[in-house]
């Protein structure tokens, strides 16, 4: 079909008008650019209410800048990223417990920042139930960042770059605590790990696991998956897994509920990127995955709140041979998501 000159001209002009309109729209600040979460097909339903805090490119980028900014600490030395390092799936690799401000030590192992949009509870004892309310705790904890959020807001308000970034993300230079927390949430929500070899295998994306890994998976499904359930590898619940209380005598979930049936229970951690997140357990007492498996086979200590699934015929422990453990470790290694731990979008800019 041959178009006549005037028709073409009309089309070009229409195109220019549309383009101009589009330019005007964004110039007028029609709002930030939506950046919806990429939901993996093998994951369960989302927990976080994204309608209350729609993720945008500008909000995410602001959250990322805040996450890596030591301004959030009392003396501007510690950022969220200090103890949540991307290369270790946002944990503090090699540290049983983390050292915060003035090298003060906490009592618990730094958990990974990943797939938090699917998390019902935060911290090892689940004391916080909304991601937006999570950052107050490390910011104000005297052994972590030891700062007061009102001071953080003051420092942000004095910073013209932040004023501009908050305006771009939330439409106003008025920096509120709600906007601060929502921006941090937007960054953390985008920390989605779902591209390990395991994921590509279960989603039939052309990856095949080895026989050893597949045998490990079968053992895992029989002996581990009742707590480390779904493709998040956690049931989002709390269990006593038979660790002997340390000198700290951390009572775990009991501290939140004051219910004796919750004594020494801790949240089931996800096993994604587990090879990258040593040491293990709430206090980082085990340095290798083999040490963890040895605990489950031979190290379980009985107590009134021990999870009943950790007993076989009334005797504490999960039966595991040395060969089974080797296969399990092979399977767990398939959960490493290199794309996630190297994603430049999630790194400090």
């Amino acid at each position, binding site marked *: 079909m041959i178009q006549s000159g005037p028709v073409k001209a009309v089309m070009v002009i229409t195109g220019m008008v549309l383009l101009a309109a589009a330019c005007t729209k964004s110039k007028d600040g029609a709002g930030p650019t939506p950046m919806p979460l990429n939901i993996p097909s093998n994951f369960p339903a989302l927990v976080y*209410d994204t309608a*209350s805090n729609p993720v945008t490119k500008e909000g995410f980028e602001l959250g990322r800048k805040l996450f890596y900014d030591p301004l959030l600490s009392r003396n501007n030395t510690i950022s969220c990223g200090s103890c949540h390092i991307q290369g270790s799936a946002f944990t503090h690799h090699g540290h049983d417990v983390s050292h915060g401000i003035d090298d003060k030590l906490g009592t618990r192992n730094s958990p990974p920042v990943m797939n938090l949009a699917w998390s*019902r*509870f935060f*911290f090892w004892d*689940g*004391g*916080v*139930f*909304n991601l*937006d*309310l999570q950052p*107050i*705790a490390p910011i*104000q*904890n005297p052994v972590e960042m030891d700062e*007061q*959020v*009102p001071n*953080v*807001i003051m420092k942000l308000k004095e910073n013209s770059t932040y004023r501009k970034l908050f305006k771009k993300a939330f439409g106003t230079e008025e920096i*509120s*605590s*709600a906007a*601060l*927390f*929502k921006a941090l949430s937007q960054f953390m929500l985008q920390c989605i790990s779902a591209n390990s070899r395991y994921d590509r295998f279960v989603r039939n994306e052309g990856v095949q696991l080895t026989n050893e890994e597949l045998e490990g998976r079968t053992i895992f499904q029989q002996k581990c998956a009742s707590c480390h359930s779904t493709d998040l590898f956690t049931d989002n619940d709390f269990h006593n897994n038979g660790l002997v209380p340390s000198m700290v005598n951390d009572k775990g979930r009991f*501290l*939140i*509920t*004051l*219910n004796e049936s*919750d004594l020494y229970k801790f949240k089931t951690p996800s096993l994604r990127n587990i090879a990258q997140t040593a040491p293990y357990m709430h206090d980082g007492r085990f340095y290798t995955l083999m040490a963890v498996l040895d605990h489950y086979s031979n190290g379980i200590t009985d107590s009134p709140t021990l999870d009943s699934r950790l007993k076989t015929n009334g005797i504490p422990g999960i039966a595991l041979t040395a060969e089974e453990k080797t296969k399990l470790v092979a399977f767990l290694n398939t959960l490493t998501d290199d794309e996630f731990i190297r994603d430049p979008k999630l790194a400090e800019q």
Partner: protein
Amino acid sequence: MKMITTYITALAFLFLTSCKKEKTDIQPGDKGELTVEFDNVVGAQNLQLNTATYTNAAGEPYKITMLNYYISNIVLVAADGSRYTVPKDSSYFLIKEEDVATQEVTLKDIPAGDYKGIEFVIGVDSLKNTAAVGERTGCLDPAAGGSGMYWTWNSGYIFLKMEGTSDVATSADKKFRYHIGGFGGYSSATINNIKKVSLTAAGTDVAKVRKNKTTPPTFHLMADASKVLNGTTNVSIAANTTVMFATYSVNIANNYASMFTIDHIHND
């Protein structure tokens, strides 16, 4: 005699008009303001932060250095028994002894009428304790107005915070700290220290809420801080120097549930 008759007639007329006026000074839809004053005391003394020494029922001397508490979910009770619930979002207040401005709460848009009682919650209800971050403004912003009255590690507001010093305190700095909260738990049940208070003014006094009144009427409440320690459980500072999120806190909340009274009502 005629003069006297005239005088009596005039008086009667005045009386009648005033009666008439009394009956009609409220038009349907009239709204006014009501002030609630929170006057913190210790027994029969005005509370003096940091300086005065008091003695609790356990016979221990103490000074108070901080007294903060939340008041929420206010309901006003009229002389005829009808009740007016203050809209939820205008019904959260943080009273601080160190900040005089917080001790007078003015409720706006109250239906005109004669009020003789008030009900409220000491603390913050469970819905607000679990609300989205954007719905926590003013004194409920855990990072601004409510800073210091919020448990960051165990999401929830501290309903009442009383701190002070005592020679019998077992802490290194000789300070006692009572941080009382607990809204019942988010997903698993735990302590619930939400306390509802229902107060009625003694005698026949009522707070007359009227449209366009220059000075709103005032419920002058007294909050007796000694009742945090004394009551069903007489708290020993030596035995319980620090009480925060723990089962013992229930005893303290039960004690302070009766710390408020309407002392009197001002109408001008």
